[in-house]
């Protein structure tokens, strides 16, 4: 698959900038991750995707589905050998604080992204997605990142350090396109830790149990996506009618869906390697929305 451009938060303008803002607030995270940034390279599709998915993403049901997916990911890796990268890396207390914050951030975000990607892929392939709920009938979660959530800080995409560039290249080769996943870009702020993680993940990713776990998670992702509270009105025809290359969008979405279960498993192994990490994101409080606002917001 050809390299797909990512639209950074700095570069985003117009409708994409607006959607980035709404995504960060609705997903309750501090930044926009790689999967979404690559979708944004198709701006009209990106806006339509958000219009179709946004109403579901801000519901309690979506949050619970994402947490359920994460719980299944952790279950899938129970009994696996601990990575040992956390103890192996020579990090100071502040560096560990930052790295732990990044893992907590991705623990909160990556299952949400996985559900969104699975839903979009199913919709683009013509499968019905969502249960057709009505506005005002579903509990919504408050918007905005948790007060202590770490900033989504990434090492540059093309780092000056040749060793890190080689590591990036190996990561993409192994996990697949369209680019270095955000959690690895973030952990690249401490190259020795990323190296320790990646060198230990390599053998695990070649294992049969790993393949079984990722396949199982893919099925869970799709099932949970089908059960989203609102219908996801998106299709290849709709993408084409918006003037975007539907085949390219589908290829990209396929690639994202292909690699996300593996990224979840890897993340679970990294999280379980850290002794004092926050294992479950704090659930958001309910957001009370008057019916007339709900009806207006539900596009």
């Amino acid at each position, binding site marked *: 698959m050809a390299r797909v451009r990512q639209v*950074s938060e*700095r570069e985003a303008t117009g409708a994409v900038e607006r959607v980035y803002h709404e995504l960060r607030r609705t997903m309750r995270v501090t930044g926009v991750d790689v999967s979404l940034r690559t979708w944004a390279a198709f701006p009209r599709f990106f806006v339509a995707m958000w219009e179709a998915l946004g109403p579901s993403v801000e519901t309690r049901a979506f949050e619970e589905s994402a947490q359920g997916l994460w719980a299944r990911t952790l279950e899938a890796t129970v009994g696996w050998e601990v990575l040992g990268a956390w103890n192996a890396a020579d990090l*100071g207390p*502040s*560096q560990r*604080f930052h790295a732990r914050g990044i893992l907590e951030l991705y623990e909160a975000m990556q299952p949400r992204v996985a559900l969104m990607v699975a839903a979009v892929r199913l919709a683009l392939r013509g499968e019905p997605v969502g249960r057709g709920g009505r506005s005002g009938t579903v509990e919504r979660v408050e918007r905005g990142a948790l007060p202590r959530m770490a900033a989504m800080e990434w090492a*540059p995409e093309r780092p000056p350090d040749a060793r890190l560039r080689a590591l990036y290249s190996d990561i993409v080769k192994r996990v697949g396109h369209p680019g270095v996943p955000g959690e690895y870009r973030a952990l690249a702020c401490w190259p020795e830790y990323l190296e320790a993680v990646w060198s230990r993940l390599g053998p695990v990713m070649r294992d049969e149990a790993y393949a079984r776990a990722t396949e199982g998670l893919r099925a869970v992702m799709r099932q949970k996506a089908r059960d989203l509270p609102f219908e996801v009105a998106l299709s290849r025809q709709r993408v084409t009618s918006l003037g975007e290359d539907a085949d390219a969008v589908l290829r990209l979405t396929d690639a994202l869906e292909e690699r996300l279960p593996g990224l979840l498993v890897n993340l679970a192994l990294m999280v379980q390697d850290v002794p004092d990490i926050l294992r479950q994101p704090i659930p958001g409080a309910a957001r009370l929305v008057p019916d007339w606002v709900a009806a207006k917001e539900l596009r």
Partner: protein
Amino acid sequence: MNWRAWQRMQDVVELGDRFLSYVDLGDGPPVVLLHGIPTWGYVWSGLAAGLATTNRVLVPDLLGYGFSDKRDVFDRSVGRQAEALDAWMDRLGLVDALVVGHDVGGGVAQHLAVRFPRRVGRLCLVDSICYDAWPLSLMSLLGTPSATRRLSPERVGRLLRLALRWKGFETAPPDGVVEGLLAPYATEVGLVSLVRDAVALDTNQTRELAPRLGHVSVPTLLLWGEEDALLPARYGERLAWDIPGARLVQVPDARHFVMWDAPHAVATELFRFMELEVPVGRVFEAGTARPRRVEAELLFDSDAPAPA
């Protein structure tokens, strides 16, 4: 010492929803070293270990700087920084410290001395912001919200490297120091944070202190690079006149980053100020060769008006 080794030494303290990273070395009477913009605690890395032979040396990164909290959700003004440092010093049980502030850190130190006097046993301002001497033109350019869109981290990095090399130092600093000073701002989050830091630079924050500088009641040392063109030594003279009993030392052959241009002179003055002997044989990291001067200097000239 390279910046990653310095970062590895950093500890962290959570202050409510914010966090602050700092280096804590040695034992003895506390010395708190504060950095300016666009740097972080690493700016003191050449001196900290030497001072730690007789003192407990604490080097925090201000909020929004270095590897302290860089999220885009709080005010980074000098006054707020002083409040955060008061909370941090409270957590660490620090009172009556020698507080040494460089550049913006000097502004924070002034706020600490005036508003939280029990934290400050002695005050040392090093090429410090004060009165209406700041912000400098380059920082004002950076300090517009749209700078996060107009400029990339790479471009800002290039510009600041140029500025620091050609205007900040009289002698070329050791290899990697300038890159290390700017390392925390090489990411997109870092750039946004640096822009917010620059947005927070406001003359009023030191102007409001000016009438109260006469109330500073602790021994005060003013250390100034004689060749500092960013915050010229005439401001040091003015502070020396306003702060009761303050002593101004102008360090020859030194510019804004006097701790790199003349580390022995700075260390000697600090030990003397603390009424301590300078440790024998202690070597402080210093630069060597004189840097090249270029026409580009014009861009980075201080645009501060002459004191009235």
